[in-house]
Protein backbone atom coordinates (compact mmCIF):
# COMPACT_ATOMS: atom_id res chain seq x y z
CA UNK A 1 0.00 0.00 0.00
CA UNK A 2 1.51 3.32 -0.97
CA UNK A 3 0.16 6.67 0.08
CA UNK A 4 0.70 10.05 -1.53
CA UNK A 5 3.50 11.87 0.30
CA UNK A 6 4.97 15.34 0.02
CA UNK A 7 3.52 18.15 -2.03
CA UNK A 8 0.17 17.18 -3.58
CA UNK A 9 -1.01 19.25 -6.52
CA UNK A 10 -3.82 17.16 -7.89
CA UNK A 11 -6.55 15.56 -5.79
CA UNK A 12 -8.02 13.36 -8.50
CA UNK A 13 -6.14 10.11 -7.96
CA UNK A 14 -5.96 9.67 -4.21
CA UNK A 15 -6.46 6.13 -2.94
CA UNK A 16 -8.21 4.32 -0.10
CA UNK A 17 -5.69 5.32 2.60
CA UNK A 18 -4.61 8.78 1.51
CA UNK A 19 -4.52 11.63 4.01
CA UNK A 20 -3.95 15.03 2.49
CA UNK A 21 -4.09 18.53 3.94
CA UNK A 22 -5.31 21.31 1.69
CA UNK A 23 -4.97 25.02 2.42
CA UNK A 24 -7.69 26.90 0.55
CA UNK A 25 -8.46 30.57 0.06
CA UNK A 26 -12.24 30.72 -0.25
CA UNK A 27 -15.39 28.60 -0.04
CA UNK A 28 -15.55 28.09 -3.80
CA UNK A 29 -12.08 26.60 -3.83
CA UNK A 30 -12.94 24.24 -0.98
CA UNK A 31 -16.08 23.04 -2.81
CA UNK A 32 -14.18 22.41 -6.01
CA UNK A 33 -11.25 20.61 -4.35
CA UNK A 34 -13.48 18.57 -2.06
CA UNK A 35 -15.79 17.34 -4.79
CA UNK A 36 -12.86 16.42 -7.00
CA UNK A 37 -11.39 14.37 -4.15
CA UNK A 38 -14.78 12.81 -3.33
CA UNK A 39 -15.64 11.95 -6.95
CA UNK A 40 -12.69 9.57 -7.00
CA UNK A 41 -14.14 7.91 -3.87
CA UNK A 42 -17.35 7.17 -5.75
CA UNK A 43 -15.26 5.56 -8.50
CA UNK A 44 -13.54 3.39 -5.88
CA UNK A 45 -16.84 2.38 -4.30
CA UNK A 46 -16.32 4.31 -1.08
CA UNK A 47 -18.98 6.10 0.87
CA UNK A 48 -18.20 9.81 0.73
CA UNK A 49 -18.82 12.53 3.30
CA UNK A 50 -18.74 16.22 2.57
CA UNK A 51 -18.23 18.08 5.84
CA UNK A 52 -18.43 21.85 6.02
CA UNK A 53 -19.73 24.78 7.98
CA UNK A 54 -23.49 25.43 7.91
CA UNK A 55 -26.75 23.51 7.48
CA UNK A 56 -26.82 20.03 6.00
CA UNK A 57 -29.44 20.98 3.41
CA UNK A 58 -27.29 23.83 2.16
CA UNK A 59 -24.22 21.58 2.03
CA UNK A 60 -26.19 19.00 0.03
CA UNK A 61 -27.20 21.71 -2.42
CA UNK A 62 -23.53 22.63 -2.83
CA UNK A 63 -22.73 19.01 -3.64
CA UNK A 64 -25.48 18.72 -6.23
CA UNK A 65 -23.77 21.35 -8.37
CA UNK A 66 -21.19 18.70 -9.27
CA UNK A 67 -21.79 15.87 -11.75
CA UNK A 68 -22.93 12.58 -10.26
CA UNK A 69 -23.36 13.88 -6.73
CA UNK A 70 -27.16 14.15 -6.83
CA UNK A 71 -27.52 10.47 -7.63
CA UNK A 72 -24.92 9.51 -5.03
CA UNK A 73 -26.81 11.50 -2.39
CA UNK A 74 -30.09 9.75 -3.27
CA UNK A 75 -28.61 6.24 -3.10
CA UNK A 76 -26.78 6.90 0.19
CA UNK A 77 -23.27 6.76 -1.24
CA UNK A 78 -22.78 10.45 -0.51
CA UNK A 79 -23.59 12.36 2.63
CA UNK A 80 -23.28 15.95 3.71
CA UNK A 81 -22.60 16.75 7.35
CA UNK A 82 -22.12 19.92 9.29
CA UNK A 83 -18.72 20.19 10.92
CA UNK A 84 -20.42 20.39 14.34
CA UNK A 85 -22.13 17.04 13.75
CA UNK A 86 -19.09 15.27 12.33
CA UNK A 87 -16.85 16.46 15.16
CA UNK A 88 -19.23 16.51 18.14
CA UNK A 89 -18.35 17.54 21.66
CA UNK A 90 -17.20 20.78 23.14
CA UNK A 91 -15.05 23.33 21.40
CA UNK A 92 -11.90 21.23 21.82
CA UNK A 93 -12.10 17.78 20.26
CA UNK A 94 -11.11 14.61 22.08
CA UNK A 95 -8.52 13.14 19.67
CA UNK A 96 -9.00 9.50 20.65
CA UNK A 97 -12.79 9.70 20.69
CA UNK A 98 -12.74 11.35 17.29
CA UNK A 99 -10.68 8.53 15.81
CA UNK A 100 -13.15 6.04 17.32
CA UNK A 101 -16.05 7.93 15.75
CA UNK A 102 -14.53 7.74 12.28
CA UNK A 103 -13.55 4.09 12.83
CA UNK A 104 -17.16 3.28 13.64
CA UNK A 105 -18.36 5.21 10.59
CA UNK A 106 -15.83 3.36 8.42
CA UNK A 107 -16.98 0.00 9.77
CA UNK A 108 -20.57 0.95 9.05
CA UNK A 109 -19.73 1.99 5.51
CA UNK A 110 -17.96 -1.31 4.90
CA UNK A 111 -20.88 -3.21 6.47
CA UNK A 112 -23.20 -1.39 4.08
CA UNK A 113 -21.20 -2.69 1.14
CA UNK A 114 -18.87 0.22 0.44
CA UNK A 115 -15.13 -0.28 0.00
CA UNK A 116 -14.45 2.29 2.69
CA UNK A 117 -15.14 5.82 3.86
CA UNK A 118 -13.81 9.01 2.32
CA UNK A 119 -14.20 12.38 4.04
CA UNK A 120 -13.54 15.89 2.77
CA UNK A 121 -13.84 18.29 5.68
CA UNK A 122 -13.36 21.99 6.22
CA UNK A 123 -12.18 21.87 9.83
CA UNK A 124 -11.16 25.54 10.06
CA UNK A 125 -13.75 26.21 12.77
CA UNK A 126 -12.16 23.60 15.04
CA UNK A 127 -8.62 25.02 15.20
CA UNK A 128 -9.09 28.65 16.15
CA UNK A 129 -7.51 28.60 19.65
CA UNK A 130 -4.14 27.16 20.75
CA UNK A 131 -5.92 24.43 22.75
CA UNK A 132 -8.04 23.50 19.75
CA UNK A 133 -5.00 23.43 17.52
CA UNK A 134 -3.08 21.22 19.95
CA UNK A 135 -5.91 18.71 20.18
CA UNK A 136 -6.68 18.72 16.48
CA UNK A 137 -3.06 18.30 15.40
CA UNK A 138 -2.80 15.38 17.82
CA UNK A 139 -5.95 13.94 16.29
CA UNK A 140 -4.49 14.36 12.79
CA UNK A 141 -1.58 12.12 13.74
CA UNK A 142 -3.76 9.53 15.45
CA UNK A 143 -6.18 9.32 12.53
CA UNK A 144 -3.17 9.04 10.22
CA UNK A 145 -2.09 5.90 12.09
CA UNK A 146 -5.63 4.52 11.76
CA UNK A 147 -5.70 5.24 8.02
CA UNK A 148 -2.58 3.19 7.37
CA UNK A 149 -4.57 -0.02 7.56
CA UNK A 150 -8.24 0.97 7.59
CA UNK A 151 -10.08 1.88 4.37
CA UNK A 152 -10.46 5.50 5.42
CA UNK A 153 -9.18 8.43 3.37
CA UNK A 154 -9.47 12.13 4.09
CA UNK A 155 -8.94 15.59 2.70
CA UNK A 156 -8.45 17.94 5.65
CA UNK A 157 -9.08 21.44 4.39
CA UNK A 158 -8.19 24.62 6.26
CA UNK A 159 -8.89 28.18 5.23
CA UNK A 160 -5.65 30.12 4.91
CA UNK A 161 -7.18 33.59 5.22
CA UNK A 162 -8.94 32.61 8.43
CA UNK A 163 -6.13 30.73 10.16
CA UNK A 164 -2.86 32.22 8.89
CA UNK A 165 0.21 30.48 7.51
CA UNK A 166 1.59 29.35 10.87
CA UNK A 167 -1.51 27.46 11.93
CA UNK A 168 -1.85 25.97 8.46
CA UNK A 169 1.76 24.74 8.63
CA UNK A 170 1.26 23.30 12.14
CA UNK A 171 -1.64 21.22 10.81
CA UNK A 172 -0.29 20.43 7.34
CA UNK A 173 2.95 18.98 8.77
CA UNK A 174 0.91 16.26 10.52
CA UNK A 175 -0.12 14.77 7.15
CA UNK A 176 1.80 12.58 4.71
CA UNK A 177 0.93 15.05 1.96
CA UNK A 178 -0.23 18.65 1.66
CA UNK A 179 -1.04 21.33 -0.89
CA UNK A 180 1.85 23.42 -2.27
CA UNK A 181 3.49 25.89 0.16
CA UNK A 182 1.51 24.66 3.16
CA UNK A 183 4.47 23.16 5.07
CA UNK A 184 8.18 22.48 4.46
CA UNK A 185 8.08 19.06 6.19
CA UNK A 186 5.76 16.16 6.98
CA UNK A 187 5.65 13.98 10.09
CA UNK A 188 3.32 11.07 9.60
CA UNK A 189 2.52 7.45 10.36
CA UNK A 190 4.31 4.69 8.54
CA UNK A 191 3.49 1.04 7.90
CA UNK A 192 7.10 0.09 8.71
CA UNK A 193 6.62 -1.56 12.09
CA UNK A 194 10.12 -0.71 13.31
CA UNK A 195 9.61 3.03 12.82
CA UNK A 196 7.69 5.34 15.13
CA UNK A 197 6.90 7.67 12.23
CA UNK A 198 8.17 8.94 8.93
CA UNK A 199 9.56 12.43 8.42
CA UNK A 200 9.97 14.03 5.00
CA UNK A 201 10.68 17.37 3.38
CA UNK A 202 13.24 19.91 4.59
CA UNK A 203 14.15 20.82 8.16
CA UNK A 204 15.98 24.08 8.77
CA UNK A 205 15.56 27.45 10.50
CA UNK A 206 12.17 27.82 8.78
CA UNK A 207 10.81 24.78 10.67
CA UNK A 208 12.39 25.53 14.04
CA UNK A 209 9.15 26.55 15.71
CA UNK A 210 7.07 23.87 13.97
CA UNK A 211 9.13 20.77 14.65
CA UNK A 212 8.98 20.48 18.43
CA UNK A 213 5.18 20.98 18.67
CA UNK A 214 4.70 18.44 15.88
CA UNK A 215 6.84 15.87 17.70
CA UNK A 216 5.05 16.55 20.99
CA UNK A 217 1.61 16.26 19.40
CA UNK A 218 2.50 13.05 17.60
CA UNK A 219 3.69 11.53 20.92
CA UNK A 220 5.82 8.99 19.08
CA UNK A 221 6.44 5.58 20.61
CA UNK A 222 9.99 4.20 20.94
CA UNK A 223 11.05 0.75 19.83
CA UNK A 224 13.50 -0.99 22.21
CA UNK A 225 14.41 2.35 23.78
CA UNK A 226 15.00 4.06 20.45
CA UNK A 227 12.91 6.55 18.59
CA UNK A 228 13.21 5.33 15.02
CA UNK A 229 12.24 7.72 12.23
CA UNK A 230 11.92 6.72 8.60
CA UNK A 231 13.75 9.65 7.02
CA UNK A 232 14.02 8.24 3.50
CA UNK A 233 12.00 11.20 2.19
CA UNK A 234 13.88 13.78 4.24
CA UNK A 235 15.59 15.92 1.60
CA UNK A 236 17.52 18.13 4.02
CA UNK A 237 18.21 18.55 7.72
CA UNK A 238 20.48 21.19 9.26
CA UNK A 239 22.40 20.71 12.47
CA UNK A 240 19.96 22.66 14.61
CA UNK A 241 17.07 20.49 13.47
CA UNK A 242 19.02 17.31 14.10
CA UNK A 243 19.77 18.60 17.60
CA UNK A 244 16.05 19.30 18.05
CA UNK A 245 15.16 15.73 17.08
CA UNK A 246 17.93 14.34 19.30
CA UNK A 247 16.83 16.51 22.24
CA UNK A 248 13.22 15.43 21.82
CA UNK A 249 14.27 11.78 21.91
CA UNK A 250 16.60 12.27 24.85
CA UNK A 251 14.07 14.26 26.87
CA UNK A 252 11.81 11.25 26.59
CA UNK A 253 14.64 8.94 27.60
CA UNK A 254 15.35 7.51 24.16
CA UNK A 255 18.04 7.41 21.54
CA UNK A 256 17.27 8.67 18.05
CA UNK A 257 17.62 6.58 14.91
CA UNK A 258 17.28 8.15 11.47
CA UNK A 259 16.82 5.82 8.52
CA UNK A 260 18.17 7.61 5.49
CA UNK A 261 20.59 7.11 2.63
CA UNK A 262 21.50 10.82 2.66
CA UNK A 263 25.05 11.47 3.90
CA UNK A 264 24.12 14.72 5.70
CA UNK A 265 22.79 13.27 8.97
CA UNK A 266 25.84 10.99 9.34
CA UNK A 267 28.22 13.90 8.83
CA UNK A 268 26.31 15.99 11.36
CA UNK A 269 26.18 13.19 13.91
CA UNK A 270 29.92 12.70 13.63
CA UNK A 271 30.82 16.40 13.65
CA UNK A 272 28.59 17.06 16.66
CA UNK A 273 29.69 13.93 18.50
CA UNK A 274 26.07 12.99 19.14
CA UNK A 275 26.08 9.88 21.25
CA UNK A 276 22.34 9.27 21.26
CA UNK A 277 21.88 9.42 17.48
CA UNK A 278 22.37 6.62 14.98
CA UNK A 279 21.95 6.85 11.23
CA UNK A 280 20.86 3.67 9.46
CA UNK A 281 20.96 3.13 5.74
CA UNK A 282 17.60 1.68 4.73
CA UNK A 283 17.77 -1.78 3.21
Amino acid at each position, binding site marked *: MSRRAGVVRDLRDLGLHDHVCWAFDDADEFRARATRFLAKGLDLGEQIWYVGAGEVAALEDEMREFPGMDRALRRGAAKAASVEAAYPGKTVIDPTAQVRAYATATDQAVAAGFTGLRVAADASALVRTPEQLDAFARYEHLIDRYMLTAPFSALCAYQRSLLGEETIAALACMHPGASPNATPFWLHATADGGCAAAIGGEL*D*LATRDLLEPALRRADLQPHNGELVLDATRLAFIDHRSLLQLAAHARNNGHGLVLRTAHPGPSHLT*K*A*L*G*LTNVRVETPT
Partner: protein
Amino acid sequence: MMAATEPFIHPALFYRSDQEYLDNLVPFIRDGRRYGQPVAAAVPTKKLGLLESALGHDAKHITLIDMTEAGRNPGRIIPGVLRAFADDHPSTHVRIIGEPIWPGRSDEEYPACVQHEALINAAFRDRRVTIVCPYDVRRLESHVVADAMATHPLVWEAGHEQVSTGYAPDAAIARYNLPLNGTREAASCTVRTAADLSAARHFAATEAERAGLDRRRISDLELIASELATNSLQHTPGACQLSVWADAEHLVCEARDIGQITDPLAGRRPPVDGQPDGRGLLIVNHLADLVRVHTAPGGTTIRAYLRLDAKLR
Protein backbone atom coordinates in the same frame (compact mmCIF):
# COMPACT_ATOMS: atom_id res chain seq x y z
CA MET B 1 63.67 18.57 27.22
CA MET B 2 60.43 19.18 29.09
CA ALA B 3 59.02 18.73 32.54
CA ALA B 4 56.13 16.30 32.45
CA THR B 5 54.04 18.15 34.99
CA GLU B 6 53.58 21.56 33.34
CA PRO B 7 50.10 22.12 32.00
CA PHE B 8 50.15 23.37 28.38
CA ILE B 9 53.31 23.23 26.30
CA HIS B 10 53.35 24.31 22.67
CA PRO B 11 56.75 24.25 20.99
CA ALA B 12 57.58 24.56 17.30
CA LEU B 13 60.15 21.98 16.28
CA PHE B 14 62.47 23.30 13.57
CA TYR B 15 64.04 20.36 11.73
CA ARG B 16 66.33 20.15 8.70
CA SER B 17 66.34 16.45 7.87
CA ASP B 18 64.43 13.24 8.41
CA GLN B 19 67.12 12.22 10.88
CA GLU B 20 66.64 15.39 12.90
CA TYR B 21 62.89 14.82 12.75
CA LEU B 22 63.27 11.36 14.24
CA ASP B 23 65.98 12.36 16.71
CA ASN B 24 63.53 14.78 18.32
CA LEU B 25 60.23 13.02 17.96
CA VAL B 26 61.06 9.39 18.67
CA PRO B 27 62.35 10.26 22.19
CA PHE B 28 59.32 12.55 22.65
CA ILE B 29 57.05 9.61 21.86
CA ARG B 30 59.04 7.11 23.96
CA ASP B 31 59.08 9.53 26.93
CA GLY B 32 55.33 9.72 26.65
CA ARG B 33 55.14 5.93 26.92
CA ARG B 34 57.50 5.99 29.91
CA TYR B 35 55.40 8.59 31.77
CA GLY B 36 52.14 6.86 30.91
CA GLN B 37 51.05 9.73 28.69
CA PRO B 38 48.94 8.95 25.61
CA VAL B 39 50.61 10.06 22.36
CA ALA B 40 49.16 10.99 18.99
CA ALA B 41 51.04 11.95 15.84
CA ALA B 42 49.02 13.95 13.29
CA VAL B 43 51.55 14.50 10.51
CA PRO B 44 51.72 14.35 6.69
CA THR B 45 51.53 10.91 5.05
CA LYS B 46 55.27 10.50 4.40
CA LYS B 47 56.14 11.50 7.95
CA LEU B 48 53.71 8.92 9.27
CA GLY B 49 55.66 6.22 7.44
CA LEU B 50 58.93 7.63 8.75
CA LEU B 51 57.75 7.58 12.36
CA GLU B 52 56.19 4.14 12.01
CA SER B 53 59.34 2.47 10.75
CA ALA B 54 61.53 4.23 13.32
CA LEU B 55 59.24 3.24 16.18
CA GLY B 56 58.90 -0.36 15.08
CA HIS B 57 56.83 -2.26 17.62
CA ASP B 58 56.13 0.88 19.66
CA ALA B 59 54.15 2.42 16.77
CA LYS B 60 51.08 0.45 17.77
CA HIS B 61 50.94 2.24 21.13
CA ILE B 62 50.42 5.66 19.59
CA THR B 63 47.58 7.14 17.58
CA LEU B 64 48.68 7.87 14.02
CA ILE B 65 46.66 10.41 12.05
CA ASP B 66 47.24 11.51 8.45
CA MET B 67 47.21 15.30 8.72
CA THR B 68 46.77 15.75 4.94
CA GLU B 69 43.38 14.09 5.46
CA ALA B 70 42.20 14.95 8.99
CA GLY B 71 43.80 18.38 8.88
CA ARG B 72 43.39 19.27 5.23
CA ASN B 73 41.12 22.05 6.44
CA PRO B 74 43.12 23.73 9.22
CA GLY B 75 39.85 24.94 10.77
CA ARG B 76 38.92 21.44 11.87
CA ILE B 77 42.24 20.42 13.41
CA ILE B 78 41.53 21.82 16.88
CA PRO B 79 38.09 20.24 17.33
CA GLY B 80 38.54 17.17 15.12
CA VAL B 81 42.12 16.14 15.90
CA LEU B 82 43.72 17.89 18.88
CA ARG B 83 40.79 18.37 21.26
CA ALA B 84 39.30 15.06 20.14
CA PHE B 85 42.45 13.24 21.30
CA ALA B 86 43.02 15.34 24.43
CA ASP B 87 39.39 15.07 25.51
CA ASP B 88 39.55 11.29 25.17
CA HIS B 89 42.16 11.31 27.96
CA PRO B 90 40.90 13.94 30.41
CA SER B 91 42.72 12.67 33.48
CA THR B 92 46.27 12.66 32.20
CA HIS B 93 48.80 14.80 30.36
CA VAL B 94 48.75 13.93 26.64
CA ARG B 95 51.36 14.44 23.95
CA ILE B 96 50.48 15.36 20.40
CA ILE B 97 52.69 15.90 17.39
CA GLY B 98 50.74 18.22 15.09
CA GLU B 99 52.21 19.13 11.72
CA PRO B 100 49.68 21.29 9.88
CA ILE B 101 52.16 23.22 7.73
CA TRP B 102 54.23 21.49 5.09
CA PRO B 103 55.83 22.55 1.81
CA GLY B 104 53.02 22.48 -0.71
CA ARG B 105 50.35 24.17 1.39
CA SER B 106 48.76 26.63 -1.06
CA ASP B 107 48.62 30.41 -0.75
CA GLU B 108 44.93 30.05 -0.02
CA GLU B 109 45.48 27.50 2.73
CA TYR B 110 48.42 29.17 4.42
CA PRO B 111 46.66 32.06 6.22
CA ALA B 112 44.19 29.56 7.72
CA CYS B 113 47.15 27.40 8.83
CA VAL B 114 48.79 30.29 10.70
CA GLN B 115 45.54 31.28 12.37
CA HIS B 116 45.03 27.68 13.41
CA GLU B 117 48.50 27.49 14.96
CA ALA B 118 47.91 30.76 16.81
CA LEU B 119 44.51 29.64 18.11
CA ILE B 120 45.94 26.46 19.63
CA ASN B 121 47.31 28.67 22.41
CA ALA B 122 43.85 29.94 23.39
CA ALA B 123 42.16 26.60 22.84
CA PHE B 124 44.45 24.69 25.23
CA ARG B 125 45.19 27.29 27.89
CA ASP B 126 45.56 25.49 31.23
CA ARG B 127 45.06 22.08 29.65
CA ARG B 128 47.52 19.28 30.45
CA VAL B 129 48.73 18.85 26.89
CA THR B 130 51.96 19.10 24.95
CA ILE B 131 51.53 19.89 21.28
CA VAL B 132 54.75 19.95 19.31
CA CYS B 133 54.51 21.31 15.79
CA PRO B 134 57.30 20.25 13.41
CA TYR B 135 58.44 22.72 10.72
CA ASP B 136 60.63 21.61 7.84
CA VAL B 137 62.74 24.78 7.95
CA ARG B 138 65.03 23.60 5.15
CA ARG B 139 62.17 23.61 2.66
CA LEU B 140 59.72 26.14 4.08
CA GLU B 141 60.10 29.83 3.27
CA SER B 142 61.60 32.17 5.85
CA HIS B 143 58.36 34.04 6.49
CA VAL B 144 56.77 30.72 7.45
CA VAL B 145 59.48 30.20 10.05
CA ALA B 146 58.92 33.75 11.34
CA ASP B 147 55.20 33.06 11.62
CA ALA B 148 55.93 29.86 13.56
CA MET B 149 57.90 31.96 16.06
CA ALA B 150 54.86 34.22 16.43
CA THR B 151 52.43 31.35 17.02
CA HIS B 152 54.57 29.20 19.36
CA PRO B 153 55.84 30.30 22.79
CA LEU B 154 58.71 27.80 22.57
CA VAL B 155 61.10 26.68 19.84
CA TRP B 156 62.96 23.37 19.77
CA GLU B 157 65.94 23.52 17.46
CA ALA B 158 69.14 21.50 17.19
CA GLY B 159 68.49 19.80 20.51
CA HIS B 160 67.83 23.01 22.44
CA GLU B 161 64.70 24.62 23.78
CA GLN B 162 64.34 28.40 23.60
CA VAL B 163 61.62 30.86 24.44
CA SER B 164 60.31 32.31 21.21
CA THR B 165 61.21 35.99 21.10
CA GLY B 166 58.64 36.74 18.42
CA TYR B 167 55.72 35.07 20.21
CA ALA B 168 52.59 37.17 19.41
CA PRO B 169 49.67 34.89 18.50
CA ASP B 170 46.97 37.59 18.50
CA ALA B 171 49.01 39.70 16.10
CA ALA B 172 49.45 36.66 13.85
CA ILE B 173 45.70 36.05 13.82
CA ALA B 174 45.10 39.70 12.92
CA ARG B 175 47.85 39.71 10.28
CA TYR B 176 46.22 36.82 8.44
CA ASN B 177 42.69 38.17 8.78
CA LEU B 178 42.92 39.11 5.13
CA PRO B 179 40.17 40.65 3.00
CA LEU B 180 38.70 38.16 0.55
CA ASN B 181 38.23 39.78 -2.84
CA GLY B 182 37.82 38.68 -6.39
CA THR B 183 34.48 36.99 -6.98
CA ARG B 184 33.83 38.61 -10.32
CA GLU B 185 32.38 35.57 -12.04
CA ALA B 186 30.34 34.25 -9.16
CA ALA B 187 26.64 33.55 -9.25
CA SER B 188 24.94 34.78 -6.13
CA CYS B 189 21.68 34.88 -4.23
CA THR B 190 20.50 36.73 -1.15
CA VAL B 191 19.04 35.05 1.92
CA ARG B 192 16.87 37.51 3.85
CA THR B 193 14.65 35.18 5.87
CA ALA B 194 14.50 31.54 6.88
CA ALA B 195 12.00 30.99 4.08
CA ASP B 196 14.79 31.74 1.57
CA LEU B 197 17.06 28.93 2.80
CA SER B 198 15.54 26.16 0.72
CA ALA B 199 15.95 28.15 -2.50
CA ALA B 200 19.51 29.09 -1.49
CA ARG B 201 20.43 25.43 -1.13
CA HIS B 202 18.90 24.71 -4.49
CA PHE B 203 20.86 27.59 -6.00
CA ALA B 204 24.14 26.32 -4.52
CA ALA B 205 23.50 22.75 -5.66
CA THR B 206 22.63 23.85 -9.19
CA GLU B 207 25.77 25.97 -9.51
CA ALA B 208 27.94 23.19 -8.09
CA GLU B 209 26.52 20.64 -10.48
CA ARG B 210 27.22 22.99 -13.35
CA ALA B 211 30.80 23.39 -12.12
CA GLY B 212 31.29 19.64 -11.95
CA LEU B 213 31.36 19.05 -8.20
CA ASP B 214 31.13 15.35 -7.40
CA ARG B 215 27.53 14.28 -6.75
CA ARG B 216 28.38 12.89 -3.33
CA ARG B 217 29.64 16.28 -2.25
CA ILE B 218 26.64 18.30 -3.36
CA SER B 219 24.88 17.45 -0.11
CA ASP B 220 27.96 18.69 1.78
CA LEU B 221 27.68 21.95 -0.13
CA GLU B 222 23.97 22.26 0.62
CA LEU B 223 24.72 21.88 4.32
CA ILE B 224 27.56 24.40 4.14
CA ALA B 225 25.45 26.99 2.31
CA SER B 226 22.53 26.49 4.66
CA GLU B 227 24.58 26.63 7.85
CA LEU B 228 26.47 29.76 6.75
CA ALA B 229 23.30 31.59 5.73
CA THR B 230 21.52 30.49 8.91
CA ASN B 231 24.40 31.89 10.97
CA SER B 232 23.98 35.25 9.22
CA LEU B 233 20.24 35.26 9.94
CA GLN B 234 20.76 34.23 13.56
CA HIS B 235 23.72 36.39 14.51
CA THR B 236 23.49 39.54 12.39
CA PRO B 237 20.77 42.11 11.79
CA GLY B 238 21.03 41.74 8.03
CA ALA B 239 20.89 39.32 5.14
CA CYS B 240 23.42 36.84 3.79
CA GLN B 241 24.77 37.10 0.29
CA LEU B 242 25.74 33.65 -0.94
CA SER B 243 28.03 33.27 -3.94
CA VAL B 244 29.22 30.10 -5.62
CA TRP B 245 31.98 29.72 -8.19
CA ALA B 246 34.73 27.37 -9.26
CA ASP B 247 38.46 28.09 -9.33
CA ALA B 248 41.08 25.74 -10.78
CA GLU B 249 40.79 23.19 -7.97
CA HIS B 250 37.79 24.07 -5.86
CA LEU B 251 34.14 24.82 -5.77
CA VAL B 252 33.92 27.88 -3.54
CA CYS B 253 30.88 28.88 -1.51
CA GLU B 254 31.07 32.35 -0.01
CA ALA B 255 28.79 33.95 2.56
CA ARG B 256 28.90 37.68 3.19
CA ASP B 257 27.02 39.50 5.94
CA ILE B 258 27.28 42.66 8.01
CA GLY B 259 28.16 40.98 11.30
CA GLN B 260 31.53 40.55 12.97
CA ILE B 261 32.81 37.37 14.54
CA THR B 262 34.21 38.41 17.90
CA ASP B 263 34.99 34.93 19.25
CA PRO B 264 38.22 33.79 17.56
CA LEU B 265 37.52 30.16 18.52
CA ALA B 266 34.08 30.15 16.87
CA GLY B 267 33.72 26.89 14.95
CA ARG B 268 36.71 25.28 16.67
CA ARG B 269 35.32 24.23 20.02
CA PRO B 270 34.23 20.63 20.20
CA PRO B 271 30.49 20.24 20.57
CA VAL B 272 28.98 20.00 24.01
CA ASP B 273 26.23 17.40 24.14
CA GLY B 274 22.89 19.06 24.72
CA GLN B 275 24.01 22.53 23.62
CA PRO B 276 21.19 23.39 21.26
CA ASP B 277 22.72 25.98 19.00
CA GLY B 278 25.68 27.71 17.49
CA ARG B 279 27.58 24.85 15.89
CA GLY B 280 27.16 26.02 12.31
CA LEU B 281 30.80 26.96 11.72
CA LEU B 282 31.96 23.73 13.32
CA ILE B 283 29.87 21.84 10.77
CA VAL B 284 31.29 23.92 7.92
CA ASN B 285 34.84 23.26 9.18
CA HIS B 286 34.06 19.56 9.35
CA LEU B 287 32.72 19.36 5.79
CA ALA B 288 34.92 21.74 3.81
CA ASP B 289 38.45 21.15 2.53
CA LEU B 290 39.37 24.70 3.48
CA VAL B 291 37.60 27.55 5.26
CA ARG B 292 38.80 31.12 5.06
CA VAL B 293 37.35 33.91 7.15
CA HIS B 294 37.71 37.66 7.02
CA THR B 295 35.92 39.49 9.79
CA ALA B 296 35.91 43.19 10.64
CA PRO B 297 33.49 45.74 12.13
CA GLY B 298 32.04 46.32 8.66
CA GLY B 299 31.17 42.71 7.97
CA THR B 300 32.27 39.12 7.65
CA THR B 301 33.15 37.01 4.62
CA ILE B 302 33.48 33.25 4.92
CA ARG B 303 34.65 31.05 2.09
CA ALA B 304 34.28 27.30 2.14
CA TYR B 305 36.28 25.36 -0.45
CA LEU B 306 35.38 21.90 -1.74
CA ARG B 307 37.83 20.05 -3.95
CA LEU B 308 36.49 19.44 -7.43
CA ASP B 309 38.64 16.34 -7.91
CA ALA B 310 36.68 13.60 -6.17
CA LYS B 311 39.81 11.45 -5.77
CA LEU B 312 41.18 14.00 -3.35
CA ARG B 313 38.26 13.59 -0.97
